[in-house]
């Protein structure tokens, strides 16, 4: 899709009504029972129609889903990543279940598993958020609800649209139609195609021209997002000259019944716009023996479509049994900037294959990659990165730094940096190190009276500093604590 700056909320209203009307006529077009809360396992076009219907979606979206599904059926599950898992039976998954109410949850914090609360404490999760995270019945958490309302007011005053994807479908269908799939097409890859066919919810963000989003979308998000399901879709558009910092995820352990997760995140930055996208991912990694745990196959891509635009990915990944994730930047606009800062921790039997792609298209585009991989136990941690300089990318520059820290003799670290340079003026630099956690460094800290645990945390945090300093302040502290919890007792 071509650059299409200049969307304004007013232009979209007429379209909105039209879309709704179109969606409305279709509502009666099929017969599958839509009353049930959960669909039986299995995936076919009818299932997709049900999902779309349940979400009250306009026709274009259903058509798009169906195109994605038809394409997905022609695709093979990729096998190139350095991860091993038993084959996934996509017909054994239920693709829709209504968001659960919290009615069945604990009635108050007093009813919550003390171990869970202890973890929140270690992570430094603010008190007012613990109840929601632990799934305490909603009406008991009115504190956070009122906080959220205040946030909403401030955002709408600034003209920022920030809402669940399913709401945007109804309130801003024109924006969706214009941008959905414009960065990650429905044909992009196996998991992205699947997501496009069956996604149930996610987030939508639009920052109007020249607006600096008045707050980190983090805080708001943490209070509101729940039950976005296993196929999550996020779309963020930063119009010309706008700025937004978005924070996804949470350091708190996230419990989820679904083993397979395949999310898609699309970012678009127009001229002079900047998007900072930070992720902390702490899904269930499985137990010490590698049983259970989430499979996380994510497609994240940002398009620096405008000149002098900037997209920056920062991620701290400690969870999931399998992580397959390569947040990428397409640097289309001249002088645009892409950044990727990553800490990936793998412990016990976890497998992480993550990295980034920086595709330089425009002139004088710049990218920076800083990847810190930490492996412990029997884990395998792989960095896979691609830096591609197209012939048009006159004067492009990339700097890549890729460090691995090994905490045990039984873990593994692997680095696959691919570089493709097709413009002779480009400068591409790559530095890589692999080190075992230093016995001598450790002894130095112990000699100063630190416990083994504290010493390890300190050294590991030092190792990750270049990434942590990119995180929003309050989150950096939590991320540090998270690392400590993830690596508890792991020096071997």
């Amino acid at each position, binding site marked *: 899709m071509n650059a299409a700056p200049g969307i304004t909320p007013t232009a979209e209203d007429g379209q909105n009504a039209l879309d709704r009307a179109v969606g409305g006529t279709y509502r009666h077009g099929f017969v599958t029972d839509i009353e049930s809360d959960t669909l039986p396992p299995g995936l076919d076009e009818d299932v997709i129609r049900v999902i779309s219907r349940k979400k009250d979606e306009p026709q274009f979206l259903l058509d798009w889903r169906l195109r994605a599904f038809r394409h997905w059926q022609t695709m093979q599950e990729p096998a190139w990543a350095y991860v091993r898992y038993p084959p996934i039976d996509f017909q054994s998954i239920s693709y829709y279940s209504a968001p659960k109410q919290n009615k069945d949850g604990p009635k108050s914090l007093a009813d919550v598993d003390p171990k869970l609360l202890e973890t929140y404490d270690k992570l430094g999760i603010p008190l007012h958020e613990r109840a929601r995270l632990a799934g305490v019945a909603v009406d008991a958490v009115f504190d956070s609800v009122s906080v959220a309302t205040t946030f909403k007011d401030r955002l709408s005053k600034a003209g920022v649209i920030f809402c669940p994807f399913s709401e945007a479908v109804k309130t801003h269908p024109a924006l969706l139609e214009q941008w959905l799939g414009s960065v990650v097409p429905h044909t992009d890859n196996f998991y992205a195609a699947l997501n496009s066919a069956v996604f149930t919810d996610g987030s939508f963000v639009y920052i109007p021209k020249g607006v600096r989003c008045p707050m980190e979308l983090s805080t708001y998000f943490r209070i509101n997002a729940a039950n976005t399901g296993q196929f999550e879709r996020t779309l963020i558009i930063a119009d010309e000259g706008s700025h937004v910092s978005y924070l996804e995820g949470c350091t708190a352990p996230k419990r989820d019944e679904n083993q397979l997760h395949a999310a898609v995140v699309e970012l678009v930055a127009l001229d002079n716009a900047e998007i900072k996208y930070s992720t902390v991912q702490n899904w269930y990694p499985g137990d010490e023996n590698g049983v259970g745990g989430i499979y996380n196959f994510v497609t994240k891509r940002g398009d620096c479509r405008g000149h002098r635009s900037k997209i920056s990915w920062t991620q701290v990944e400690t969870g999931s049994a399998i992580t397959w994730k390569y947040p990428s930047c397409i640097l289309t606009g001249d002088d645009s900037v892409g950044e990727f800062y990553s800490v990936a921790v793998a412990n016990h039997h976890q497998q992480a294959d993550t990295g980034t792609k920086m595709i330089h298209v425009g002139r004088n585009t710049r990218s920076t990659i800083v990847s810190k991989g930490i492996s412990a136990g029997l884990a395998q941690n792989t960095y896979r990165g691609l830096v591609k300089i197209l012939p048009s990318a006159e004067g492009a520059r990339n700097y890549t730094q890729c460090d691995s820290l090994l905490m045990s003799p039984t873990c593994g670290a692997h680095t696959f940096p691919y570089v493709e340079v097709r413009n002779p003026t480009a400068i591409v630099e790559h530095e890589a190190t692999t080190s075992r956690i*230093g*016995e*001598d*460094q450790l*002894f*130095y*800290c*112990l*000699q*100063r*009276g*630190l*416990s*083994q645990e*504290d*010493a390890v945390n*300190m*050294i590991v*945090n*030092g*190792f*990750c*500093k*270049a990434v942590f300093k990119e995180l929003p302040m309050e989150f950096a502290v939590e991320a540090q604590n998270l690392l400590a919890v993830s690596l508890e007792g792991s020096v071997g």
Partner: protein
Amino acid sequence: MNATTLPTTPLLEVLDLHVEVNGKPILKGVNLTVNAGEVHAIMGPNGSGKSTLSHVVAGKPGYVVTGGSLRYKGQDLLALAPEERARAGIFLAFQYPLEIPGVNNVYLLKAALNARHRHLGLPEVDAFEFLQLVKSKMQRMQMPESFLSRGVNEGFSGGEKKRNEVLQMQVLEPTLALLDETDSGLDIDALKVVSNGVNDLRSPERAIVMVTHYQRLLDYIVPDQVHVLVDGRVLLSGGKELALELEQRGYDWVRAQDAA
């Protein structure tokens, strides 16, 4: 050393200590008694086992004690983990201080002081008071404040690392300080600054054991005793004059004396 029994227990008592590294004997029966209030200097040729001795006292892994004993305030040191020894007041200024990239110098210091406080049942240090304390000690060590926020020893020059070790020591106020060649690599002015820093710590409750190759240091920090460690054993002990004599006669003289 029971011959010189004192009314109080020695701070450090090394008795016939035998230590191996990778199956190779390094210390071959070291005896050393250090009482509170004393300053001892240990001299000796390269590779004679001086650092090994200080490492073993501090509890560095990788050394196998094959014989003898090690007591601190009458307590069996070998039963204590390195961090427990540190919290009990043993401090080692490393011959080669380690770099810990990304970890603020001041952060390590604070964690170290807090660990000691916890051990003593004291409350955690107040952030403001701590900073005041560190800054005053830095002034004493003539270190610019910019060193606070730099990574621990990261990119420090050899002399700056040594100064930083003594700064840590000043903040932690150990009972037994082991200084392993803290004077090596210091310029003339820095030697004075560091020596003053060490002398600040001299007190009737504390003891200092310093490993050095240069008698010059002993002009600044005057020792009560000088020991000569050769090939894993203390072959000779004496007063401050011994250092001067060594400088004139060399270690072969010590070996010859021992053979005699």
